[in-house]
Every structure is written in C-alpha cells, then in structure tokens.
C-alpha cells in the first residue's frame, strides 16, 4: 500500500493533465470553463495537501517503494527522505499558488486546456524528481521534465518562441546525455549494485580509476548543470522568457532549474559522495564554473533592459549560488545550498509574478517603460521591492539568511581545507553579485516609486485578487522566514550533517 501512497502525488497530476487534453473539445461554454478551472485548482491543492501529509506523517523518512523494474536492477523506485521532502514540500507549496496566478494571467490567451494540461503534468514530474529513490528514477523524471515543459515554452507559437524551444530542447537533451554517462558510471561501480541513494555516496572507492571517477563526475555535473543554467550552457534560459510568465516563473525559476540543482545535490552528496570529491581538482573545476556563472550572469543582468530576461539572468546567478554551496562538499555547504534553494524559489517566483502582473495590466515588458507605475500599482511593486531586498540579502528578509549560511559555510570550508583560496573568492563573488542584484533590482523599484516629476503617470490599477494573493503571501513569507528562520536552518543543518 505504501507504494501507492508515495507514487500518488506524482501520478495524480500527470493523470489530470492528460485528462485535460481529452476534455479539450468538451470545454466550450464559460460555465464549463469555470467548472474545469475549479476542479483543476482543487486537484492541485489536494495533491499538495496529500504531499504535505506524506511529509508530515513520515517525518521525512519512508521505506523505499519499488514501482516497476525497468531493466535488470534498474528500478523506478520512490523513497521520501528528508532532502527529497524539502524540495517536494517547496514545490507542492508553490504550485497551487502558481496555478491560481496562471488562471488570471492566461485570461486572454487561447489554447488554455493544453497549457494547463502540460502545466499540471510538470507538477507531477517535478514531484517525481523530488521523490526519486535512486539515480535512475531521478534521471527518468529529469528527462521527462524537459518534454513536459517544452510545449509550455512553445505556447505563444511565434517564430521566436519556436527558436527558444528548439534551443531549450537541444541544451536539455545535451545535458541529459552527458548526465547519463554519470548515471552509467554510478550503476557500474556502485557498492550496493543498484543506484539507490545512500547519504555519503554509494561508490565503492576501490572501483574504477580515481581520475576517471572525477572526470565522469565533472561531466555529469555539467550535464545536470545545463538544467541549472551553469555558465557555458545557460544560453537557453534568457530566451525561454518568451513563454508566458507562469511558465517562466514556476518552471524556469522554481521547478525546472531547481530540479537541475536538486539533481546536482543528489549526484554529489548521495551518489558520488562528498568525501570522495573533497579537495580534488573536480571540486575546484566545479566551484570555478559556479563562480564564473554568478559573476557573468549578474553583470549581464545589469546590462539587460528586458525585465523578464533580467530576472532570468538573476535566476542564473542565484542558481549558481546553490551549485557553489553544493561544490563546498561539506555538510554546512549542503545545508546552505538547500536554504538558498528554498528561499530563492520564493523570492524569484514573487519577482516574476510581479513582472507578469505588470505585463498583463500594462503590457509593458521593458524596464525603461515602468516610470511611475509604483504609485498606481503599490501592492504589486511593494511585493516586488520586498523580493528585491530579499534577493540582495538585506537582513530583515529571508535572503540574508541563505546568504549568511552560504558565506559562513564557505569560510569554514576554506579554513578546514587548509586555507584554500577559492571558497573565500566565492564569498567575495557572492557579495559582488549581491551588489549587482541591488543595482538591477532596486533601480527598478526606485524608478517605479520615485518617477521624474515630468513623467506622466499611467492610469493602470493593481491586478485582481488572484494575482495579488500569491504575491502578498510570498512577501509575507519572506519577511516571516527572515525574522524567524532559525528552525528551518536547524532542520537543514542536520540534513546536511547526515548526508555530508
């Protein structure tokens, strides 16, 4: 029975999504549309509650449930461990709110049932990535995520959207192909014979040459890193902002990229093992790539004038914070990475939703067109400023917490590793990027709330409640987490200790 329970939250949304496709010809009258919309929201909410209940009941630890045997000892197996429950909890908390937001955002768009179909399928697939008990299942759902999300990127059906989709597909599949090599290596040389996750790594050290292990780890890291927009392979994300905002916000800022980062964490701490990789050249290569991404992306964000593309670049740099945390290979590093994973998800989804709200209300997408909007849409831009401050790491907000844990983890890693220079450079890079975040986020806030006297004020109002509720919820959450984030950090710390 346990198996159904765990697999439920993964396959219920997938089933609902496909059901939506089949119902598409039937949904014609507005009455039916509202009915379907309500049903969909209820289902998504129910799914999240189910997931929450699972996490609560099992306290983050549940025995493995094998679904079916793919080939040989490769099995599709779900197992809820603490780290998985963190990511699953985050995703299931954000998804209903994003769906609610999407309802009002997609008012004017056509082909809504297909959009919401794929949107809900992605929910299930992301939960699949979170609940995966072994590297194979995670790889399967990781690859299916690409194919569940690419129709969403293509939704506007313009030639630009098609080009973005193609680029997204090539990068993701390329990444998955190289990650596959890592999976194979782990499968062949794993101590337990299967690829089930073992905190602290499952490779038996004797097997395979050391150099080869490191090379394949780096390949797999860059493979999964593509989805986490690591530097050389980040090209697809800014272009993918052509998709509707709920997609860019939820999938690219939260579910999509985060699953890439989550996969990297699983790969590093639960498959190859941090002890094996600590202090080796692989760690420095990986950390260097993350740092380069942070610097590159934050500087590009300042130069970018298109608002959503600017937020996309900001996502790229923040994702590399998580990868930097992961590359520290210490328990504190893992805890910091998870902290930033959670906090950044909330911050970025709030920022993207504000951008989306502005786009629906005023149709403006460029930063230069936003003068004086703050006075007309105070709530939206209030939340945006909260998100901006939190992104920068200003103390009363949650962003400071994750920056704090990241930097202290990096400095303690530096001192443990005999004064290695790179983590310290990492801290400097994080602070530089915080300054850049300040520049590209606060310049929007200042421009919006303190427009030039001469600038005429547009007469646009705040969007309806379905958009404002998520925004306010996120802003409030950021403040609450900022002020009393201590229990969360403690919980993450002992996840780290156990896996480090």
């Amino acid at each position, binding site marked *: 029975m346990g198996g159904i329970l765990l697999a439920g939250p993964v396959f219920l949304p997938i089933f609902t999504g496909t059901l939506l496709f089949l119902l598409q010809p039937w949904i014609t009258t507005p009455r039916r549309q509202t009915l379907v919309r309500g049903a969909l929201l209820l289902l998504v909410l129910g799914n999240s509650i189910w997931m929450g209940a699972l996490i609560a009941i099992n306290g983050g630890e549940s025995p493995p449930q094998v679904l079916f045997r793919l080939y040989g000892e490769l099995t599709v197996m779900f197992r809820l461990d603490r780290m998985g429950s963190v990511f699953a909890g985050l995703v299931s908390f954000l998804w209903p709110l994003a769906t609610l937001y999407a309802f009002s955002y997609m008012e004017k768009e056509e082909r809504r049932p297909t959009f919401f179909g794929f949107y809900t399928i992605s929910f299930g697939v992301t939960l699949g990535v979170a609940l995966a008990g072994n590297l194979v299942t995670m790889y399967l759902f990781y690859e299916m995520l690409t194919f569940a999300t690419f129709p969403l990127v293509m939704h506007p059906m313009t030639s630009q959207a098609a080009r973005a989709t193609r680029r997204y597909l090539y990068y993701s599949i390329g990444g998955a192909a190289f990650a596959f090599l890592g999976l194979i290596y782990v499968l062949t040389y794993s101590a337990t014979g299967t690829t089930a996750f073992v905190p602290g790594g499952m490779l038996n050290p004797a097997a395979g040459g050391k150099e080869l292990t490191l090379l394949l780890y780096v390949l797999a890291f860059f493979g999964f890193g593509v989805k986490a927009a690591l530097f050389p392979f980040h090209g697809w994300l800014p272009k993918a902002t052509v998709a509707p905002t709920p997609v860019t916000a939820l999938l690219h800022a939260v579910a999509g990229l985060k699953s890439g980062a989550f996969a990297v964490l699983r790969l590093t701490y639960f498959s190859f093992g941090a002890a094996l990789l600590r202090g080796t050249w692989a760690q420095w290569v990986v950390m260097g790539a993350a740092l380069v991404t942070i610097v590159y992306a934050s500087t590009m964000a300042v130069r970018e004038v298109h608002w959503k593309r600017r937020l996309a670049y900001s996502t790229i740099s923040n994702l590399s914070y998580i990868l930097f945390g992961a590359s520290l290979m210490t328990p504190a590093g893992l805890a910091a990475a998870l902290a930033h994973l959670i906090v950044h998800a909330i911050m970025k989804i709030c920022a993207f939703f504000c951008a989306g709200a502005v786009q629906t209300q005023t149709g403006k997408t460029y930063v230069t067109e936003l003068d004086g909007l703050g006075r007309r849409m105070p709530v939206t831009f209030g939340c945006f400023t909260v998100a901006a401050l939190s992104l920068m790491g200003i103390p009363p907000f949650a962003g400071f917490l994750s920056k704090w844990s990241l930097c202290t983890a990096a400095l303690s890693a530096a001192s443990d590793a005999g004064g290695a220079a790179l983590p310290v450079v990492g801290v400097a890079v994080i602070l530089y990027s915080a300054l850049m975040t300040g520049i590209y986020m*606060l310049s929007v806030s200042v*421009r919006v709330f303190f427009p*030039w*006297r001469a600038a005429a004020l547009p007469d646009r109002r705040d969007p309806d409640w379905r958009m404002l509720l998520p925004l306010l919820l996120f802003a409030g959450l950021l403040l609450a987490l900022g002020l009393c984030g201590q229990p969360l*950090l403690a919980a993450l710390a002992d996840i780290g200790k156990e896996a480090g």
Partner: protein
Amino acid sequence: MFLLLPVFFPLAAGAAMLLAGRRMGKSRALLNGFFLAAQALETVFTILAAALGGDVTLLSLTGNLTMGLRVDGVGRFFGVLTAVMWFLTAVYAVSYLKEDGHAAGFYGFYLMVPGALIGLDLAADALTFYVFFELMTLTSLPLVLHERTKEAVRAGLKYLFYSVGGAFLALFGIFYLAQAAGSLTFLPGGYFTAASAASAPLLLPAALCMIVGFGAKAGMFPLHGWLPVAHPAAPAPASAVLSGVITKAGVLAILRSIYDLIGPAALRGTWVQSAWLILSLLTVFLGSMLAYREPVFKKRLAYSTVSQVSYVLFGLGLMDPLGFTGALAHVAFHSVIKTGLFLFAGAVIRSTGRTRAEEFQGLGRIMPVSLGAYTAASLALIGIPPASGFISKWYLAQGALASGTGVFRYLGPAVLLISALLTAGYLLPPVIAGFFPGKEPEGPALISGEKPPAMMALPILLLGAAAVLLGCFPGPLLGWIGRLAEAGIVG
C-alpha cells in the same frame, strides 16, 4: 523594554505619516503639528532611553548569534547627538517645505530615519548594527530623491549603490568575524589580541574591508564619490541631516567594528592601521582642496564634510586615548557646525535663489543675523581658539604626537593644519562678500531677496551659538568623552 520605544516609535510614526499622507495633506497645520510632535517625542524617548540604559534581545538568528539592543557609553553619546540635531533640523524643515506639495512624503521618511539611527547606536551586536545600517540607507534614500529632478534621482541611485556596495564589502568582514571570533556581540576591547590575530589569517584583510566598507558612508577616500553629488541634490534640511548625522553613523560603524569587534590591540602597528591613516589623511587633504575649487555653495559644503569626517577617522585610526577623545569631540562639533552651515545655505537659496558662492555680494544687508551665525560656525570649523573646532583639532594633534605610529606622528598634524587653512579659504569668502561688498562698480550687482522667516533663522542662530559656546566651555563634554576613551581603549 523601554529601549525599543526610541527605535520603533519613529518607524511606526513615519509609516503612519506616509500612509495617511494624502488625507492629512489637506490641512498643512495638522500635518506640521503631528510631524513636530512626533519628532519631539522621539528626542525625549532617546534621551530617556540613554539615561535609563538597559538591555533587550530581539531574536536569535542561529545557535550562538543573537540580535539585541544595549545602551553603552558610545551608543549614548551618538544617540543623544542624533536626537538633538534631528529635532533642530525638523523645526527648520517645517518652514523650509512650507509651499512644497509633497511634504507628507518627506516628513514620513524624515521621521523614520532617526529610528534606524538610534537602533544603529544602541545595537548590541554586529548583526543588529548591520540591519539598522541597511535600514538607515533605505529610509534616507527618499530624502535625497525628494526633489524628483533627473539629477536628484541619479544622485539618489548613486548614493544607494555606493552605500549598499560599502555595506556588502563590510559584510565580508562580519561573515569572517562570525566564523573566526564565534560571536558578534560588541565587547569593549574586541575579541582578538595581537597573539590570537596571528591564528586568523584573513583577519587583517577583513578589517580593511570593514574600514573601507563602512568608510563609504563616512565619505572616506575610495568610496566618497556619492557625497558631493547626493548632498547638494537633496533639499537643505535633508542634506544638513545627511552631512551632520548620517556620516557619523559611518564613523560609529568603523568605531564599533575596530574597537568592539576586532580590538585595537590586534591592529596596532599593522599595515591596516597605516593604510587607514593614509586613507583618512588623503581624504582630508582631497576634500578641502576640492571644496576650495568648488563654486556651487552646497557642493563646497559637501566636500568640506568629506574632509572634516576624515579628521575623525584619522583620530580613530591613531588608537590612542587622546586621539579617540579628539575624534569624538570633533564628531559632536562637526555635526553641530555642518548642520548650521547647511541650514544657512538652505536659507540663502530659499530667500535669494542663488546657489553659487561668489554671488553672495551684500548678503549681510538681507540676513545679518544668519550670516553672523554662519561666520561663528565657520570660525569654529576652521579651528580658531575660542570656538569648538580648535579643541578637537588640538586633541587630535596631541593624540597623533603621543601615538606610536611612526611617521604619522608628524605628518598628521601637518596635514590637519594645511586643511584648516584651506577650510578658511573656502568658508570665509561668502562672509567677506556678505558683510563688506565693497564699492567696485564693475563687481557683481548686490544680491536682493527677503529675510528668512524666524523658524528658519532660529536653528541657524542656535547652532552658531552652540559652536562657539561648546568651544568656550568644553569641560563637561570633554570629561564625558575622556571616560568613554578609557573604557573604549583598554589595550
């Protein structure tokens, strides 16, 4: 618990003022009344809190790091100074913004800034200190932006990014200390002695980062770029407060991080101290030179702030009781003087519309009282004996000579002297032009304008008088600062 009042009451009042600004805007009297009452209350609460003392913890961030407020000597000194100066400028602001439509916005943010400043002064540990430091930057930004002209917005952004950048640079130091020292609460004399500093390799660079980072707010050399741009762009009361009080927050930040976190013993004689002294002296000289060449009057005063605040930093850099006393004294005196000067500048601009220094021909005829007060304050700033400036410069020189910092023992006083001369060079011409316009027919025409209203002239007069009186009767102030010096510099 009483300690929370001075910090959170102004924040709440300011927020209320902002939210209710539209409706209350109708009757200007009601608006001004509420504003002044709140400001007065804030000053009273601060003085009471300073008197009563006490300790409160707000929340605990991680295992051993907690955030809280505590009143100690230095905190009390800065708190009182801030409260008093803030109230005087508030009085001036009410009349200055009489016919300004957006006054409610200005008043709201004007009320919130002291909350952050008092919180800054009373912070018990680096984290709380950093929280209020950022809050102070964010709440003071709208003051700069008040004019809403293109230059104002550009200056505001520059101010924001410089201070936020500086804060992040300093944050590196805080992170390092959190990891190296284990705790961040302020401990008089600091956590490191010369011996234990050797075990923390990155301590010195961290210290330098904090000095330069917090120095941005105090207008020290590498990150001083925003000050000459932001102050003139802000309305007069705002620039007065900015120069007079907010730069002192930067000074307090450096004082706390060096004297209460790292510990002067660890830094005495190291390259960090000499770098610090070099930077401050360079700023002193640079500030005065630029002020001397600057035609626009408010910009000139801004440059003078850059150089004067670096006097204080030089004093702190000496890590010598005498230097410490001179520094703190100069903090008080400069705050009083510079606020007076800026208020005077505001009055001149408000009544005559002229902004350039050499256009003040015959100003004495229009506003003799204010010009008199201005002259007194200028003399104090230059350091003419009876006025207060002389005393602080005297102590600074004494401290330099007594401190064992090698070449700076002589270089310091020399630079201070040269800068004093330059200060005279850029402050006195308006006085001469004002009182003795001279008869040359081809000279610029005499200035014309009406007298500044009483509410504006009163604060200028008070500050001018205070500048001189403090110089004459420095006893009680110097005694208080002396006791702080002993407590502060144990090592």
